[in-house]
C-alpha cells in the first residue's frame, strides 16, 4: 500500500532536490537531451527506464523538427499566404509538442510518480533542460 502513490500524493510531499538533464549539442542545434544517467537518480529508478524515456523524448523532438516534404510544403504554403496561415493553422511542431506533453504526463503517472519523481516538460524550461524533481522518501512512504 505504501508503494503506490499518485501524483496528488506527490503534491503534498516536500521537494528533496532537482536534477537537470542538459541538452546534447553534438548533432547540431536540434533539440536533443543527454541520455547520460544522473548520479542522483541511481537509487530511485532503473537506468534503462530513464534512458528509454529520454530517448523517446529525443525521437519526438526529432520528429517535430524533421526536415522533409511535409515541413517544406508547410513552409512554402505559409510563404505564399504571406505567413497568415500561421494565424489559423496549428503548425506541425505544435502538434508534436502536444504529443510530448501527453507522453510526459503518461510517464509521470505510470512510472515516475510511484517512485517519488516528477518530470517537467522541457517546454516549460525553454527547451533547455529536462527537470526531474526528486521528492523526499519519508512523506511518500507514510501514505
Amino acid at each position, binding site marked *: 500500500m505504501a508503494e503506490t502513490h499518485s501524483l496528488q500524493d506527490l503534491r503534498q*510531499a516536500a*521537494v528533496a532536490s532537482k536534477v537537470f538533464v542538459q541538452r546534447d549539442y553534438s548533432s*547540431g542545434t536540434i533539440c536533443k537531451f543527454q541520455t547520460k544517467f544522473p548520479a542522483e537518480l541511481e537509487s530511485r529508478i532503473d537506468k534503462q527506464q530513464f534512458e528509454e524515456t529520454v530517448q523517446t523524448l529525443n525521437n519526438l523532438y526529432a520528429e517535430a523538427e*524533421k526536415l522533409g516534404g511535409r515541413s*517544406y510544403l508547410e513552409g512554402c504554403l505559409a510563404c505564399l499566404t*504571406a505567413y497568415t496561415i500561421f494565424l489559423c493553422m496549428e503548425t506541425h511542431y505544435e502538434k508534436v509538442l502536444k504529443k510530448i506533453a501527453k507522453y510526459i504526463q503518461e510517464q509521470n503517472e505510470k512510472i515516475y510518480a510511484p517512485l517519488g519523481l516528477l518530470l517537467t516538460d522541457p517546454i516549460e524550461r525553454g527547451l533547455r533542460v529536462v527537470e526531474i524533481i526528486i521528492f523526499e522518501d519519508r512523506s511518500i512512504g507514510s501514505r
Partner: protein
Amino acid sequence: MKNCEYQQIDPRALRTSTTRTSTNKNVRVRRKWEVLPGKNRFYCDGRIMLARQCGVLPLTIGLIFITSGLFFTFDCPFLVHHLTVFIPVIGGVLFVFVVITLFQTSFIDPGILPRALPDEAADIEKQIDNSGSSTYRPPPRTKEILINDQVVKLKYCFTCKMFRPPRTSHCSLCDNCVDRFDHHCPWVGNCVGKRNYRFFYAFIVSLSFLTSFIFGCVITHLTLRSQSVNGIIQAIKESPASVVELVICFFSIWSILGLSGFHTYLVASNLTTNEDIKGSWSSKRGEESGNPYTYNNILTNCCVVLCGPMPPSLIDRRGFLPPDDAPQIVTSDTELPHFMAKNDTNMCTQGTKELLESMAHSTVIQSTCAPCTPKTTPVPQESLLSTVSITVSPSSKSPSTGCSGRQARRPIDVPCSQRGNKQAALHTHKPMLRVSSPPYSLGHSPIILSDTPDMVFIPLN
C-alpha cells in the same frame, strides 16, 4: 486530471484552493508577459511584442505607406490609362506582402530564450569549477562542445544565468538571449532571430521588388508623360509626386537590394549576420574551421532556413500566472519558497521591474552609443542612408509615437562593425561587475546587483 495542473505543480495551492478563491475576488489573474524580464514591450494583452526602443520602425512604415500611397494616387491612373490595369494590381499585391511581412517581423517573438530559474542556475553554478566564491572577477565562463566534429565554445550569459546554446546571442537592446541571433534591426524595431528570420527575409526581398517596381513605373510614367507634353520639365511640373517617389526609391534601392543580396548569401550558406561579422567560421586563424551548421548544399540550406518547421515561442507570453505564485524570475534561497504562494514576492518583482525600467530610461538618455544594426551594406551606401534619414526624420512623426527623434537617427550614424565589438566588450565587462555576493543567497538583491551594473556601464562603452 486536468492538463494545466501538470504544468505548475503547487502543493499548497491545492490545499488552500478553497480559501484562495474567497480572498482573490479583487486580484486580477495576470498573464506571464507582465512579469517577463527583458526590455520588451507588449501590446494587445501579450499578442504583440516590440523592442523597448522601437528604433525607426515608424519611419519604415511611413516611408512605405507614403511612397506606395503616392504611387497609387498619382502614377497609377496615368499608367492604367496608357498601359495596363495590372500595374496597380501587381503593386497592390507587393505592397500587401511587404506590410504583412514587416508586421510579422516586428511583432512576433524572435526566438527569445527564457531565463534560467533559480534552481537551474544554481545547478549550473555547481557544475562550473569555481575556486573562490568571493572573487570580484570570476573568469569568463565558457564550455566547449563538439558539433559535427567541430569545436564550438558556449558562453555563459550572466544576465540569463545559463550557458547560451549554439548560435544564441544576448541582445543588449532587448536584454534577452535570442536563439539563432542574426542582428537587432532598428528598421523593424525588433531582433531578428530564429523565429522571424524568414519573415525578415521575405520582407526585404519583397520590399526590393516593390521599390524596383515603383521605380520602374515612375520612370515609365515620366517618360511617357514627357513624350506627350514635349519636355521632361513640364512632365515633372505636372506630376511632382513622382519626383518624391523617385528620390525615395533611388536611395532605398541600393541599400535594400544590397541587403537582400547579402542575406541571400547568408541563407545559402546557413550563416547568421552575427557569425559573419565576427568571422566565427572563417579560416583566417589558419585552421580548418568551417561552418558546422551548413548542409553543404545551397538548396538544402535555403529550404532549411526559409521553409523549415516553425519553432514555437518559448516564452509563453499569454499563459496565466498562477495567482499568488511567485513569478519565476524572483530568486529565492531555498527550493521550497519557489512553490509557495507569497504576495510580497509578487510585489517585489513588480518593484524590481519598475526599478529596472526607471534605470533603463535614465541610462537611455545618457547613452551615446548607437544601437546600430549590422546591416553590413558597404559603407558608401551607409552614408547615403544616413543622409536620407537625417533629412527625413525631423519631419517624421516619430515624436508623436513615443520614440524620440534622437533614437530614430541614432542607429544610422555608427558604422556596423562596432556592434560586434561592443557586444563582446559588454560581455567581457560583465564579469567585472558581478559583485561578490554568492548568487541566490540574498532574496531579490541579485537581480538588482547583477542587472543594474549592465545598465550603468553600457554608456561607458
